[in-house]
């Protein structure tokens, strides 16, 4: 029976696996989106959710717990100051995995993992905007200064929207 056997092992020792996921998590939070194999991407979701939940909790214990996972103090700070602030109303499911096809060389299925609500210029936000609107409404009384900023950026990349209509 495979009861209580969640997770993947990736043919690695526990130490190797832990090191690999720490690196992946750090880079996911640093760049907001990373490409990796589909299996690693799917495993990364559960780990990233836990770190973001810690980021929402705040407090010294959470800070130290995050620092014990993330390899970079700057990125750990970002989790508390930026990333966790995006999800006041969302209980988990902070990441999105999109399949990208197969890698040249070994044919491994590749995926893009991203933190939801990321607003980088040059990226289209058509699909995200409806979701993004909900969050600021609820969060508006609390932090009106921070929320409008990520809302404005989606307006810039208007070109990809045209492309989708054509």
């Amino acid at each position, binding site marked *: 029976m495979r009861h209580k056997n969640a997770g993947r092992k990736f043919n690695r020792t526990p130490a190797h696996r832990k090191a690999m996921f720490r690196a992946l998590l750090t880079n996911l939070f640093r760049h907001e989106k990373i490409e990796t194999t589909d299996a690693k991407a799917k495993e990364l979701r559960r780990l990233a959710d836990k770190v973001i939940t810690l980021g929402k909790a705040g407090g010294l214990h959470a800070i130290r717990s995050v620092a014990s996972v993330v390899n970079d103090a700057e990125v750990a700070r970002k989790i508390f100051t930026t990333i966790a602030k995006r999800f006041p109303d969302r209980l988990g499911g902070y990441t999105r995995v999109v*399949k*990208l096809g197969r890698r040249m060389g070994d044919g491994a299925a590749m995926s*893009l993992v991203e933190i939801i609500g990321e607003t980088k210029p040059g990226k*289209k936000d*058509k699909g995200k905007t409806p979701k993004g609107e909900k969050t600021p409404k609820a969060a508006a009384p609390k932090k009106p200064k921070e929320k409008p900023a990520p809302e404005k950026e989606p307006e810039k990349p208007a070109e990809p929207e045209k492309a*989708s209509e054509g």
Partner: protein
Amino acid sequence: MALPKRKKSRARRDNRRAHWKATAVTYVTCPNCMEPMLPHHACPSCGQYKGREVVHIEEE
């Protein structure tokens, strides 16, 4: 130990292999650029998935 009594004929070998078939890859048409793409994947030609750009692909 059990051993084959005689060599399998070419016909038997080939008949057995007649059922080894490659299956066609399932694909769908990208709603944005109309190119064929794998279902549940970002489009490799325009980089879009579910109406948003997932990967940026340079135009020629």
